[in-house]
């Protein structure tokens, strides 16, 4: 009797665990699949590159981050080869990308009181004002800042922008020391990612 009861308990718990794990898994998959992307973005996604070694270099590296096979999760992913590339000569005219070395902060590390940090980058084409967005995340993954660049960016020219209130449409909050991860986005597409450190 007691043995049967324990067996039932074990079976019930196994079902519950299986159900929960499949629910969590399906939730993760659904989130990626349900994100609405228009056809033009859809075409540029390296869906297959995570599983094969043949990579289509006509597709920009930035979109690779959007794919389910996130190279950050797998250091052996062939997408990492794309991320290490610095030149994108074969991009079509309609596609915007960051050229060489991605977006960098100088100096890094920096103090908001003592230094005048700048972000520098070069884009493949002109970008109108209030289009490029900078997002900052603290060490807990919380978004501390989101602002769009108020100046127009000239294509194929190295641009340096002061990391100050005047450069963005929203003021930069007082940030305590630590590591911050930043994303540069163009119409919800991640163009570049990086890290900087703030010291007091």
């Amino acid at each position, binding site marked *: 009797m007691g043995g049967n009861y324990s067996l039932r308990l074990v079976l019930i718990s196994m079902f519950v665990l299986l159900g*929960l794990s499949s629910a969590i898994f399906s939730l993760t998959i659904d989130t990626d699949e349900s994100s609405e992307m228009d056809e033009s973005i859809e075409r540029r996604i390296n869906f297959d590159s995570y599983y094969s070694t043949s990579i289509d270099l006509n597709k920009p590296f930035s979109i690779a981050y959007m794919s389910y096979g*996130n190279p950050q999760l797998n250091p052996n992913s062939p997408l990492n080869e794309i991320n290490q590339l610095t030149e994108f000569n074969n991009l079509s005219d309609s596609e915007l990308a960051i050229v060489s070395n991605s977006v960098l902060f100088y100096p*890094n590390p920096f103090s908001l009181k*003592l230094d005048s940090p700048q972000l520098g980058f070069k884009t493949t084409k002109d970008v109108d004002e209030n289009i490029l967005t900078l997002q900052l995340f603290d*060490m807990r993954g919380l*978004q*501390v800042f989101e602002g769009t660049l108020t100046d127009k960016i000239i294509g194929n020219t190295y641009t340096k922008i002061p990391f100050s209130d005047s450069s963005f449409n929203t003021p930069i909050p007082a940030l305590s*020391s630590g590591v911050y991860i930043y994303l540069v986005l163009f119409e919800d597409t991640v163009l570049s990612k990086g890290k900087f*450190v703030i010291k007091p």
Partner: protein
Amino acid sequence: MNLFYRSILLILIFQLPIFGESFSLISDIGSSAQAIALGNIEGQSRTASAIFSNPAGLYLIRSYSFSLFQTTVMNDINYLNFALSKKTPLGTIGFGHYMASINDIAHTMIDEATQEFTIKENFNYKNSVTKLSYQRSIFRRLKLGLNLSKYNVDFHTLKANGFGVDLGALYILPFATFSAYAQNINQGEIIYKDSNNPDYEGKETLPLSISTSMRLQLWDFIFFPQVKFMNGSMLPSAGVQYAPRFIPYLKFNMGYRQLLDYANQVHNKASVGMDLKLLSITAHYAYERSEYHLQDHMSYFSLSYNFKLKDPKIANRFQLSSILLFLPSIYLMTL
């Protein structure tokens, strides 16, 4: 109440919060996956991880307790903590180490030929806190715990350190347990030094945070409401644990919390999780949605292991080695 406890009470009452440039605590992410799943409730842990939330919670440890916590945030930032505690005739002692590390951060320079920013080298960032804990029962229903914390930050050519003192109390009633926890009551300073620039000295203040929470059991459910006061903000949290009687080794957790980011802005988070107890090891899992564009969720894992040494010979040897328990923590404190 003797003079020692009266002094601690007076320090707490007359402590005025300083709202300057405050240091961000890595331990604010949560002490264990269970605590995070319950809305980051502080003061209700009954394992060694209580060192990071409310050391008064160590009172339930019968012999030894070990806990381990790990998570990776945004695929880049690794969090790890471990804690060990031991009951002695004079009270429960323990130590814990909590660290966050990030690799491959670009140290930038200006290319003289092109005047563009380039990467000169990569460096790593490490932020850690080591805590020494002591817990003692004052009355049958009142438990007190004290922490001494050493904070360390190390990146590029900079190093920083500072000390903090935490105080926690638990009051146990038949139907509920009340917790009060004050972190960094000394509001000490973290001093930054740059080995490349002797003139540089940066300072940040350790933030005072005070939290009060309650554990209330009703049928198979345990409710955990909490209010936390930090950097001038009142942050409510709540957690519910469901411990079904027909599956005694599984518990389901759900929580909501408000928390401050590194810019002192308030965020709302909801979390779910579960605990699976197998023999004396309990595995905890927590799940949370993420605000980060490239990773839509965060997963937290922790383990807790409460054990007792039954063989008297081994136990006696371990009694002697209880002093050794503190050697690694003393080493970490001196770093």
